[in-house]
């Protein structure tokens, strides 16, 4: 298991290769990558991500450990950036490795759902008109009821 919280960019391809390689007992690897998306009406200048150093790493480790146990994963990876990002940059990624595809998919969705609402990150969107904190979505909180 690897959990990385950093303000530096990461290479999703290199991370995926490092994660997927050398697993002879594992048939399925799923990755999710979150990308800063431009806003259709009011172009995004940047996204700033604040976090809670110390708690962030602990929360992500707990979420990943829970997923590994629940889906008998061979491995799990969580990377999340903080600081200032521009449209097109990668915000975060998760990866899961399992014997069967359904477990790898479910575990990755679980990681994402918990990471969205239970890891201490806060996003702020900066446009030409000003800046605003991103509001948590009810649907993201509702997604947790699935698990």
């Amino acid at each position, binding site marked *: 298991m690897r959990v990385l919280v950093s303000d530096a960019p990461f290479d999703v391809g290199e991370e995926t290769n490092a994660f997927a390689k050398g697993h002879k007992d594992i048939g399925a690897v799923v990755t999710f990558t*979150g990308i800063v998306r431009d806003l259709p009406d009011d172009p995004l200048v940047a996204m700033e*991500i*604040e*976090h*809670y150093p*110390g*708690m962030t790493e*602990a*929360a992500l480790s707990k979420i990943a450990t829970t997923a590994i146990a629940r889906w008998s994963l061979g491995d799990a990876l969580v990377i*999340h950036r903080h600081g200032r990002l521009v449209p097109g940059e990668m*915000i*975060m990624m998760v990866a899961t490795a399992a014997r069967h595809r359904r477990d790898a998919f479910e575990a990755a969705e679980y990681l*994402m759902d918990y*990471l*969205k*609402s*239970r*890891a*201490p*990150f*806060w*996003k*702020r969107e900066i446009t030409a008109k000003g800046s605003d*904190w*991103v*509001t*948590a979505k009810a649907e993201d*909180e509702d997604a947790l009821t699935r698990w």
Partner: protein
Amino acid sequence: MDVLYFAWMRERIGLPRETVETTAGTVMELVEELKAREDRYAMAFSDISALRVAVDQELTDFDAPLTGVREVAFFPPMTGG
């Protein structure tokens, strides 16, 4: 006890962290003490249903006890991912 604020709580309170002398037995009692201090606290804590709290870096409820606690953090719902 260290009290931390993140995102718009940090902006509304006007600082990211402060040390608070308190005998509050629960998070809610601490909130009431803080609200009594100044208007900006009263306003920042006016709707606690819009807030989340972590005690010693673990998410918890506003009725959580504060015995032996070193760090309490207040912030809006998280928006990671």
